[in-house]
């Protein structure tokens, strides 16, 4: 009898415990650390080398590979024959990755100088066999403005700016720097109807995280027909991956025309530096036989890709400041966050737990948006039209003055301040831009402070 009582008493306790459990509450938003823009792949560095830190949690061998990749990223290549790092050119834009991607970030919007970070894409109307930009005969899809001895550069790029003044309703003024690009000294006649697009090297950190955001997650933010009527119609760019020979969703490049980090890095090697590799065995104007060894070895190319993949994201600064907090609210209120999506979730790469299942804040949806006439380059790229650009990530944007001395914003570095960059927004961003302009100056300052905290 006593045994029965004890057993049933215990049973009652156990059943109560099971049945009266509270349902799992969602982890409260406020418990997340707002400084961790890259989740576990965040690093606390706000100096000039903030974009060049390795993610944590990697094995000793992976760290070694990252460092090898770092070294090659910074390595100057020279013209052949040479005992060390030959293979530059014969035509190129610069001699090393770091020359354009200064401190792993954006560089300086000049062209043709040893320290320039601009390059020019080119194409002619039409599409190639895979729906991509059609190469301009004699020039390919990129213009190289430097060449080794015995060769001429394809062109020289002239860069000039016309300034205009923008006056806010409250009387504050900002200068707008409108670039005027001229193609000079083409080595051969340019084809009819050619289209060019001048681009500034973008920062290279955080791409490993963006690589792991699933397509499903990104498509959730897509709204090509603007079904919700908010004026924002982000859409994915489906592109051809020349390595896997598949049609995939693009996410790298200023118009999201590249779908894999390997292709992004490999094409930069061959187009920007003339350094052939296992993905691109020949420059487009040479007919290098495939029997010839590539300029950079497979392992070194893979090391550079791994290096890029495992670069950490710098933590936010000043998140407790009232102005920053107010700025963040304004950012949402005026719908900047419609394209610059604050939070994404990464999927899983079992080799890199630090990048997997992370809650990240890149402030991008990686989708294409019409940005209006002012920013249009008129050059389509796969499904991206002439007035469309991929939303760039805003993480790290507050550190541009540190990583480059002088900061330059937007796809060609025309904006010298964040306010200038905002003022260029048009098209789908027109509403948000107008709302920004109408804000009282203290609110505009708060929003800028928020951006500077990223």
């Amino acid at each position, binding site marked *: 009898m006593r045994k029965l009582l004890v057993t049933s008493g215990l049973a009652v306790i156990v059943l109560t415990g099971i049945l009266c459990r509270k349902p799992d509450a969602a982890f409260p938003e406020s418990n997340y650390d707002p400084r961790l823009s890259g989740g576990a792949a965040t690093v606390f*560095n*706000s*100096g*000039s*080398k903030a974009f060049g830190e390795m993610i944590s949690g990697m094995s000793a061998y992976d760290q070694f590979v990252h*460092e090898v990749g770092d*070294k090659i990223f910074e390595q*100057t290549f*020279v*013209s*052949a*024959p*040479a*005992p*060390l*790092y030959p293979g*530059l050119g014969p035509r190129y834009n610069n*001699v090393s990755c770091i*020359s354009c991607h*200064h*401190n792993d970030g954006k560089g300086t919007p000049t062209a*043709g*100088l*040893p*320290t320039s970070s601009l390059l020019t894409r080119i194409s002619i109307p039409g599409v190639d066999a895979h729906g991509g930009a059609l190469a301009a005969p004699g020039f390919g899809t990129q213009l190289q403005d*430097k060449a*080794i*001895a*015995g060769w001429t550069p394809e062109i*020289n790029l002239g860069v000039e700016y016309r300034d205009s003044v923008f006056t806010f309703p409250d009387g504050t003024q900002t200068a707008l720097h409108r670039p005027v690009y001229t193609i000079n*000294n083409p080595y051969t006649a340019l084809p009819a109807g050619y289209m060019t697009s001048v681009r500034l090297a973008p920062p290279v950190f955080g791409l490993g995280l963006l690589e792991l955001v699933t397509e499903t997650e990104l498509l959730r933010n897509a709204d090509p027909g603007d079904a919700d009527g908010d004026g924002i119609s982000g859409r994915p760019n489906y592109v051809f991956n020349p390595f896997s020979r598949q049609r995939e969703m693009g996410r790298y490049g200023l118009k999201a025309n590249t779908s894999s980090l390997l292709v992004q890095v490999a094409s930069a090697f061959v187009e920007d530096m003339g350094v052939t590799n296992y993905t691109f065995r020949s420059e487009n104007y040479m007919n290098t036989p495939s029997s010839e060894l590539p300029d950079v070895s497979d392992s070194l190319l893979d090391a550079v890709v791994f290096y890029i993949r495992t670069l950490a994201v710098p933590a936010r*600064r*000043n998140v407790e400041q009232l102005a920053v907090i107010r700025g963040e609210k304004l950012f949402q209120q005026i719908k900047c966050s419609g394209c610059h999506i604050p939070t994404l979730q990464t999927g899983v790469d079992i080799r890199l737990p630090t990048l997997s299942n992370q809650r990240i804040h890149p402030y991008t949806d990686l989708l294409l948006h019409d940005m209006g006439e002012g920013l249009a380059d008129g050059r389509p790229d796969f499904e991206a039209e002439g007035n469309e650009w991929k939303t760039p990530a805003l993480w790290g944007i507050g550190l541009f*003055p*540190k990583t*480059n*001395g*002088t900061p330059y914003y937007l796809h060609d570095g025309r904006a010298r301040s964040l306010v200038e960059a905002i003022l260029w927004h048009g098209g789908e961003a027109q509403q948000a831009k107008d709302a920004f302009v109408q804000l009282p100056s203290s609110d505009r300052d708060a929003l800028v402070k928020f951006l500077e905290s990223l």
Partner: protein
Amino acid sequence: MLKKSYLVLLGGALMTAAVFSSCNNKDKEDNTNDFTELESKTLSSFVSTLGTPLYAQFREKASNLNQSVITLATNPTEANQTAARDAWREVRVLWEQSEGFLIGPVDDNNYDPYMDTWPTDRSRLDSLLNSEAPLDADALAGLTDTESETELTLRGFHPLEYLLWKDGVNYTDREKEYMQGLAQDILNNVTKLNADWVPFSEEFINAGQDGSRYESRQEALIALADALTGICEEVGDGKMKEPFVGVGGTPDSTITESPYSHNSVADFRNNIIGARNVYICSFNGTEGTSLSDLVAANNKTLDQDILQKFEAVINSFDGITTTFEKAIYDQPSAVQNVLTSIENLKTSLESLQPYLQTYVKD
């Protein structure tokens, strides 16, 4: 009720305690003020005692190099070649020491690539010499024709090194022209660096105030601390380790940075000396308030540790008694000793950032 005498004693004790506790508060406040002053002094001393004088002497040595190259080109004798080589080495001392603080214009404005790009592009160097292209400094810098600024692999210390360490003194006219252009180009760049340093140094001293890229004194001091760990990494994990470890475990002396002059050991040693000069804020016998003072204020152990580790590294270089190119084959334990000392130094220096984050509050 207590005896009267005990009451008096108790009262006296209480009063004394009150007096002393308020004194303690004042001391604490004084200490905080002292520390804040120490922070500002560290920032300004770095500029006035180390940064500005070092860059000024750098310019002086670059000017000497320029002179000695002109002398060599005008009158190519062995004595003049030796003098030019010595002048090159002397400039490198300042340059390598300045790498102890790679912040400011040298980082922002690409002075490092303009002066120290490596490897030199030998095939293009030969083409350049065989061509008719002008080789004066203005032409190299693209000042006469903006579209023809010479590639970085053909400017700076290393192409000049290649020419100065040529066997013999029968320089061709083109080589003479080129070496003068190179030396003048280096001088021009160092002069510009000095000019660019002025506004940056003001930003540095005024960290935390309007107009400075540093939002706080903490940030500026951390930038300095990062530069110290950075140069340890570059020397220890990069410039020394790579030739030493080579590919697949076999040392490779062809990938050292100053291969023609065999000046690498001096280069590395000066890098570490430069870093130590930053830590103790010392240059040419003058000392100023330094990171060392800042650290010792709250953590004497850490300060002593870092100072000892610096000593150990600088002394460990004495174990290498031949050129670096030979040492990686013939004196591997001495080289390894240097690498280990640098690793230890770097580990200690990594405690600087958390220290600064804890104690520098502004």
